[in-house]
């Protein structure tokens, strides 16, 4: 029997427990601890099940949010899992790293009252329940094989979702990954304390359980070209190769020892587990004073990793002000709580080395905000004569990434923009090349996990339509 909805709207959003900042700044365990059974019930019961369902349209993969929340409220976890996973193959990841505050939660009816339902936290609870109760899972019913083969290049968010959906439609999928572990940015980029690697691997295992063949250590464009894949074995190819190329500062001193791209810094820490050196063989330089340049999520991740490695002072050096920080608010807050020092309106001029070519300081400009630029944000301009020195011994450059040219440069007939991204239809992911689709950061430039997953999903539907027509 259905519970009678409470007449009074509850505006007390249930907080999720987190590790104490002083403790977590020294460990790699997950910062956010997740809801308890009682908490999730309480939060789920706040949902007024409004008919507008704005949350569903706010979600890039259109999860039936009110329905799965209702199932949670009724304590029917298997049903909640079923509803969630019918639209989102990787909910344990999305529940952790999606920017819900600018998606489903932003448009929640209770958002007007400043108390949106914590959809992400409920999603995380449901997904974790699923991972912890695999034996209760009913096996996914796969349709009879279609006999069609698809190559998915890249095993990050876009590739994983595309592969999972195609497999569920009965197609034979081979997913190629350049690194030695599947998951792409979920493995090399996002740190353990924000997204535990066993959660990622559990989701990868789920995709494999659908019959997807994962080929690691396979750099496509080198080991085989897209044209060879199409000629030899596959009916269609999906490019989900991400935006893996780091941008540097282009200022003097960027090649000094102790200057890292955020990609290198995070890959050493996350993928290669340098934080466990010497138990793991890959080393990393732990600075005493670390400057991270940039203001996005990758910058926050780098700074918080540096702190956990044992740095005494960690700075975020950002050329605009706090209001313009592109990182998630939650991550900025986490970083500040842990003791990261923010240097706003600051931009490096040059990095200075000692006589052994190690970073010893960084000269910076003070900036001020001028007229709005093309992005609508106020353009930072140099304050004349404002140069000052920062004592630092490690610098991490987190200014963004662009797509790797390996596939574009070895594939005939793709349309490539001047930013190196692959041109593809926004709705279908279809490129101008016959039988080739693309989605995720390789198309949009560096963006979010969920938007890449949405693109993978739409491409899978389009590929399926092509293969079964």
């Amino acid at each position, binding site marked *: 029997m259905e519970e009678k909805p409470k007449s009074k709207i509850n505006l007390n959003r249930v907080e999720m427990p987190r590790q104490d900042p002083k403790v977590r700044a020294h460990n790699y365990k997950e910062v956010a601890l997740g809801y308890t059974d009682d908490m999730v019930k309480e939060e789920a019961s706040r949902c007024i099940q409004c008919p507008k369902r704005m949350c569903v349209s706010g979600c890039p993969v259109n999860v039936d949010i009110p329905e799965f929340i209702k199932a949670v409220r009724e304590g029917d976890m298997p049903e909640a899992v079923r509803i969630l996973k019918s639209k989102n193959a990787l909910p344990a990841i999305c529940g952790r790293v999606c920017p819900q505050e600018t998606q489903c939660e932003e448009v929640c009816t209770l958002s007007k009252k400043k108390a949106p339902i914590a959809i992400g936290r409920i999603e995380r609870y449901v997904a974790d329940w699923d991972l912890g109760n695999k034996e209760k899972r009913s096996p996914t019913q796969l349709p009879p094989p279609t006999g069609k083969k698809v190559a998915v290049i890249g095993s990050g968010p876009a590739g994983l979702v595309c592969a999972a959906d195609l497999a569920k439609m009965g197609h034979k999928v081979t997913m190629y990954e350049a690194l030695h572990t599947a998951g792409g940015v979920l493995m090399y980029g996002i740190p353990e304390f924000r997204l535990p690697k066993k959660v990622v691997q559990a989701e990868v295992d789920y995709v494999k359980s659908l019959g997807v063949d994962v080929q690691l250590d396979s*750099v496509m464009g*080198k080991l*085989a070209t897209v044209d060879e894949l199409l000629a030899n074995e596959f009916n269609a190819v999906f490019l989900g190769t991400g935006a893996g190329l780091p941008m540097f500062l282009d200022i003097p001193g960027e090649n000094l*020892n102790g200057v890292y791209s955020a990609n290198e810094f995070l*890959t050493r820490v996350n993928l290669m587990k340098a934080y466990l050196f010497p138990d793991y063989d890959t080393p990393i330089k732990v600075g005493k004073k670390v400057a991270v340049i940039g203001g996005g999520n990758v910058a926050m991740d780098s700074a918080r990793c540096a702190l956990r490695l044992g740095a005494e002072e960690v700075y975020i050096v950002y050329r605009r002000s706090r209001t313009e920080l592109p990182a998630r608010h939650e991550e900025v807050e986490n970083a500040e709580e842990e003791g990261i020092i923010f240097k706003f309106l600051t931009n490096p001029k040059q990095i200075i080395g000692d006589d052994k070519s190690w970073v010893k300081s960084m000269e910076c400009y003070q900036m001020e905000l001028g007229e709005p630029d093309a992005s609508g944000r106020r353009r930072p301009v140099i304050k004349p004569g404002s140069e000052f020195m920062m004592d630092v011994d490690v610098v991490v450059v987190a200014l963004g990434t662009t797509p790797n040219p390996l596939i574009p440069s070895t594939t005939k007939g793709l349309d490539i923009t001047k930013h190196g991204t692959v041109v593809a239809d926004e709705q279908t992911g279809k490129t101008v090349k016959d039988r080739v689709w693309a989605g995720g950061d390789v198309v949009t430039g560096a963006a979010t996990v969920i938007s890449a997953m949405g693109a993978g999903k739409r491409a899978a539907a389009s590929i399926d339509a092509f293969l079964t027509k």
Partner: protein
Amino acid sequence: MFKIIAKEKLTPVIDCLRVEAPALAKKAKAGQFVIIRVDEVGERIPLTLADWDAKEGTITLVAMEVGTSTRKLGLLKAGDVLTNLVGPLGLPSDIEKFGTVVCVGGGVGIAPIHPIARSLRQAGNKVISIIGARNKDLLFWEDKMKKVSDELIVTTDDGSYAAKGLVTEPLKAKLEGGKIDRVIAIGPAVMMKFCSLTTKPFNVPTIVSLNSIMVDGTGMCGCCRISVGGKTKFACVDGPDFDGHQVDWNIAFDRQKVYLKEEKESLDRWESCQCSK
């Protein structure tokens, strides 16, 4: 997992492994490299291809035991596996008919110069090879190099075998003795630097193969960046071959030393673990 078909010690500290990798062997070209991981806790280390056999589906790697990863590699036997092997990475060497080319291989660099010399000779060049090592015990593949060269000169730094001296000495003599159209030098960074300095006054195009520290090997991390002609390049995707006259050798040397302390710590720990086994 990649099965090791054969393993031999070329010298007490240099290992040669033939590894099953059919897809890779089909695509391999002279000058390209692979990245391997010896075990689940291992680093990703780049090794330039020493040879490959597309028909047999194998590649050949040669490594000198200098750190934890290469010491672990040295313990592997035929029948064992490499946990990870990825490639072929990097751009292949330019192989065309240049005329007379000198291929210089120093130390463990003799291995990667071998397929380049072979390809250059197949392309119709006259190939003069110079191989050298610190001493007799570090020298290998003299016979293989002889087969792919029109002329082979061997040196050892200490004179324990063949001509005493550095590879730059016969290189200079060749440059003075007649028209040389191209020089390719592979070996320790300091050797490549001095080969480049030797050829500079003669204005002979000189290619070096940089074996920088890498992580992914696909352009993702920028760990291997170097300065060439004043521009930052990634050895993994823009190289590994570069114009030796344009390389900023000071930056190249410095960047090789980033982890000296950690490399020693790792090796000491590994050695003490081995002893207690």
